[in-house]
């Protein structure tokens, strides 16, 4: 479904803060696969998502989605097939519009010709109520409430609904529950699994929660310095505990630290 081949990205090239954010990364996702992504801050996880979603063009390499080369496609055009959720619940919704207007905007764009006809029809409203009821947050009775009045968790659940109302080919979840309280986070995570599973949406999810990285989906990748440094799947992943994974994580990080030390000492000699 998603084929990323050897992508590279350097930010602020030629300045003192030059930074290789993606260093020849390749990744393939099968249709319907749910892959979790872990790695320390600055490992390039969000940059990878930015590259896939088209926030910027990569310097080298190619990105294909469902056979189509999207390497140089504009962000808003890619968005037709890619849903994306961020940590900040404010990014995915228009706070000044009502719940039903948010839903109507996305729904009318995706299902009808984008036009000068009314965006919200009575039949839509019934459908929206049904969808919202599935979130089990009482939003189905607040269609005319401004989204700005909702809690972070409600907003994130709504964003999830917006980006999957018409199932995308790829769903990118960038720590989408990190800003929520534990109970709400668990609830949104549950919804995520349910919605992605029901619609068999190919999903990539960044998380800092090692337990959910192992629990959700079928494969886990670890990133560091713009590359994938470890992949876990199958039996090995099933039997792995959070402790084991942290242990592995430390091992990999240490090895690199040691390499750095050797490099520095080599320079001194």
């Amino acid at each position, binding site marked *: 479904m998603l084929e990323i081949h050897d992508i590279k990205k350097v930010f602020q090239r030629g300045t003192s803060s030059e930074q290789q954010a993606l260093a020849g990364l390749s990744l393939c996702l099968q249709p319907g696969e749910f892959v979790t992504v872990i790695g320390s801050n600055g490992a390039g996880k969000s940059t990878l998502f930015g590259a896939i979603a088209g926030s910027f063009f990569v310097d080298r390499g190619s990105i294909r989605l469902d056979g189509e080369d999207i390497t140089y496609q504009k962000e*808003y055009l890619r*968005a037709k097939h890619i849903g994306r959720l961020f940590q900040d619940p404010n990014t995915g919704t*228009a706070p000044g*519009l009502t719940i039903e207007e948010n839903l109507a*905007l*996305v729904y009318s*764009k*995706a299902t009808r010709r984008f036009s*000068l006809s009314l*965006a919200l029809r009575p039949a839509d409203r019934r459908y929206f109520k049904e969808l919202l009821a599935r979130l089990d947050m009482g939003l189905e009775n607040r269609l005319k409430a401004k989204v700005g009045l909702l809690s972070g968790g409600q907003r994130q659940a709504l964003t999830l609904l917006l980006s999957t109302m018409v199932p995308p080919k790829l769903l990118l979840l960038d720590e989408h529950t990190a800003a929520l309280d534990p109970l709400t986070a668990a609830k949104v995570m549950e919804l995520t699994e349910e919605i992605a599973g029901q619609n068999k949406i190919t999903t990539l999810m960044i998380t800092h929660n090692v337990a959910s990285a192992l629990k959700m989906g079928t494969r886990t990748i670890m990133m560091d310095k713009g590359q994938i440094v470890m992949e876990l799947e199958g039996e090995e992943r099933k039997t792995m505990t959070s402790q084991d994974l942290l242990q592995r994580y430390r091992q990999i990080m240490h090895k690199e630290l040691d390499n750095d030390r050797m490099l520095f000492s080599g320079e001194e000699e």
Partner: protein
Amino acid sequence: MDILGTLQLGFIYAILALGIFITFRVMNTPDLTVDGSFTLGLAVSAVLAMGGHPLLGLGAGFICGMAAGALTGLLQTKARIHPLLAGILTMSGLYSVNLAVMGGSPNLSLLQSATIFTVLRRAFPQIPKDYVLLISIVFLSLLCVTVLAWFFRTGIGLALRATGNNAAMVRASSINSDGMRVLAIALANGFVGLAGAVLTQYQNYADINAGLGVIVVGLASVIIGEVVIRKRSILGGLLAAAMGAVIYRLLIALALYLDFFPAYMLRLVSAVIVAITLAIPQIRELIGEARIRREAQNHAGNS
């Protein structure tokens, strides 16, 4: 005090206020193109009326206003120029364009020409002149409100409002948010141009400086309207802007009638009204902080 005349003028400026409402409230970016696009609409309309096409003048005023707005929108989105500066650039350039439209003359008289109002008066000779004017102007501005209220509920209209709210969300819905922004600014200036176009035929002359400071008049109207009509739906906002313009005119007329200040102080008074209103949230916060500090000190003093 000429109430009918004030109402007529008020409802003409209501159309201007609708345009300002679109940029200032819907898109959340005040747009300074309006000083230029208002005069552009006015100049185009005057010249066409002089050529015997008053109705065409209104349409052309709207279209030309849109074109000016689209230019500002492109400067903002494609050239990434700061929205305020983009507006200033278009407005400044339009001064020359407007003079060119008016054939190099700083003012034109329409007293010898047919306007939509002379046509309407001739069509309804049994109704007193002032009422023909008022009814037609009120009809036109309410038509504008209705059209906009409908537009903002269509797919494109919704996308436009969402762009002013959260452009990233609009892009995530696979809609070109830059395109929406250009459309919004164009539409806003279309209404501003239309207001100019109506005004020139109403007062039977065109002046190159007619647009000076209309941005402040428009902002004042939107703000005054929001005090009166508190409903924050899109229709509520549009009605508030239109009513605000009428109330603004009435207040000004009243102040002049009672001789509160000479006519040349008008701009200053408008600017002060807008500045104070925009500062109110900040003033409230300062008062709140002062109260907290005072209460805390009292508390410390008591214990």
